[in-house]
């Protein structure tokens, strides 16, 4: 599809590099715009889902065309409101770092999406080490938190930032070990290859969440802790340190932190779907699907399965927030270091033995 656009641009007499640039920008927009829209509507979904869980209605007034439409206009209204709010830079703050911090948390949250595959050929940058790239680029996000806390010159912000940073780095280890298990199973560091490794004759029984079950659970819980979401949100902990590292931020600067957090949530959910739940693969074995074009489109492999699985994990994020009370800080650190790391190390050895023994149906292929 993009070759057609590129050839058309070349036919217009554009320089080849400019044509490539335009096509790449077009592809990036195709990833970025739906992503930012999903972020906006994830905030809406969060308020609705938690509302229903608490027997409330959630936002239901702001709609389009003069109709309420279940409050679907709410995220747009919020964005516009935040845009017209004053950005307050506190007196003692380090102005440059104060303003650079939100960008430092936003840019990695977006840039990680460059290598996420949405289908067997639908990937923006098909690099070999794509999973390593995601891990590296998301680890930069911690700077946004630390710098924000330090630059604000506020005790609450500083405390929140330190807690948050120590928590993020602790869970990054558990997450890294869980990823190593996936790499062992797939024998590749490329996310597309990891998904292809989960294909097979048994549909969803071929996916990695079965042999890697403990790693799957640990990966997702670590993901919740990495994004500082409830029940691990001591960094924000409004009842003790008001809002943590972004207490001094207002207007658009606050909105950027908020967007980065939600973009990271979607990223974690989609990675979990890609690595453990077979990504865009259909849960039904290919032999079960009737040989009709319509059925094949609806039940066969495709991006709709990936989006559905991602939505499932996002729902878990919201469900956790509505259900669990906040962990205490020492309990969070204990869970990360004393529970998750030993379990992952042991399970890596178990997976190694599975591979050495060629356990079917996951590891029998050479």
């Amino acid at each position: 599809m993009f070759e057609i656009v590129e050839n058309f641009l070349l036919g217009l007499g554009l320089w080849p590099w400019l044509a490539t640039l335009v096509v790449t920008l077009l592809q990036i927009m195709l990833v970025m715009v739906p992503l930012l829209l999903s972020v906006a509507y994830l905030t809406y979904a969060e308020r609705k889902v938690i509302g229903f869980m608490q027997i409330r209605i959630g936002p239901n007034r702001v709609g389009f065309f003069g109709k309420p439409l279940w409050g679907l206009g709410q995220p747009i209204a919020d964005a516009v409101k935040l845009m017209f709010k004053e950005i307050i830079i506190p007196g003692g703050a380090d102005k440059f770092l104060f303003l650079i911090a939100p960008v430092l948390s936003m840019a990695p949250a977006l840039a990680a999406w460059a290598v996420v595959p949405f289908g067997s050929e639908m990937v923006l940058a098909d690099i070999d080490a794509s999973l390593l790239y995601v891990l590296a680029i998301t680890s930069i996000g911690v700077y946004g938190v630390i710098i924000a806390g330090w630059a604000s010159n506020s005790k609450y912000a500083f405390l929140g930032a330190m807690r948050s940073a120590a928590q993020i780095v602790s869970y990054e280890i558990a997450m890294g070990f869980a990823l190593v298990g996936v790499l062992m199973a797939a024998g590749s560091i490329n996310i597309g290859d990891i998904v292809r490794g989960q294909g097979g004759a048994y549909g969803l029984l071929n996916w990695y969440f079965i042999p890697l079950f403990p790693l799957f659970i640990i990966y997702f819980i670590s993901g919740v802790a990495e994004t500082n979401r409830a029940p691990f949100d001591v960094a924000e902990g409004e009842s003790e340190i008001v809002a943590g590292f972004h207490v001094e931020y207002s207007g658009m600067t606050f909105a950027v932190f908020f967007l980065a957090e939600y973009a990271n949530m979607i990223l974690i959910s989609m990675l979990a779907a890609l690595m453990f739940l077979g990504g865009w693969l259909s849960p039904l074995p290919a032999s079960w699907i009737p040989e009709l074009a319509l059925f094949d489109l609806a039940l066969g492999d495709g991006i709709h399965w990936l989006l559905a699985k991602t939505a499932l994990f996002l729902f878990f994020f919201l469900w956790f927030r509505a259900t669990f009370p906040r962990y205490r800080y020492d309990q969070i650190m204990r869970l990360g270091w004393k529970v998750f790391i030993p379990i992952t190390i042991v399970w890596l050895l178990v997976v190694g033995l599975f591979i050495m023994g060629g356990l079917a149906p996951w590891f029998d292929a050479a």
Partner: protein
Amino acid sequence: MLENYLPILIFIGIGLVVGGGMIAAGFLLGPHKPDSEKLTSYECGFDAFEDARMKFDVRYYLVAILFIIFDLEIAFLFPWAVVLRDIGMFGFLAMVMFLGILVIGFIYEWKKGALQWE
């Protein structure tokens, strides 16, 4: 290989532009009415007693150091996991030994109480 990285470079650039652009838009569209009370940092109604950038528990350094060590361990595990099928039992046992030595360190940490948060 390098041509695959070009979209990433552009993507990172766009990520920075989007983040910076949003903040710039907020600056352009929002009001600017600073006053001295508004600009003080958030406190419980008092003036701050001391500098907010205080010293804190040495335990945070320890967590950061241990994090570096384990991060390096993960960096060693990544290529190993990829080639495990090719290097066979020898490679597997090499990593078992590597992890075994590090697990000794981990047990030492645990017994010393370095992982215990007060």
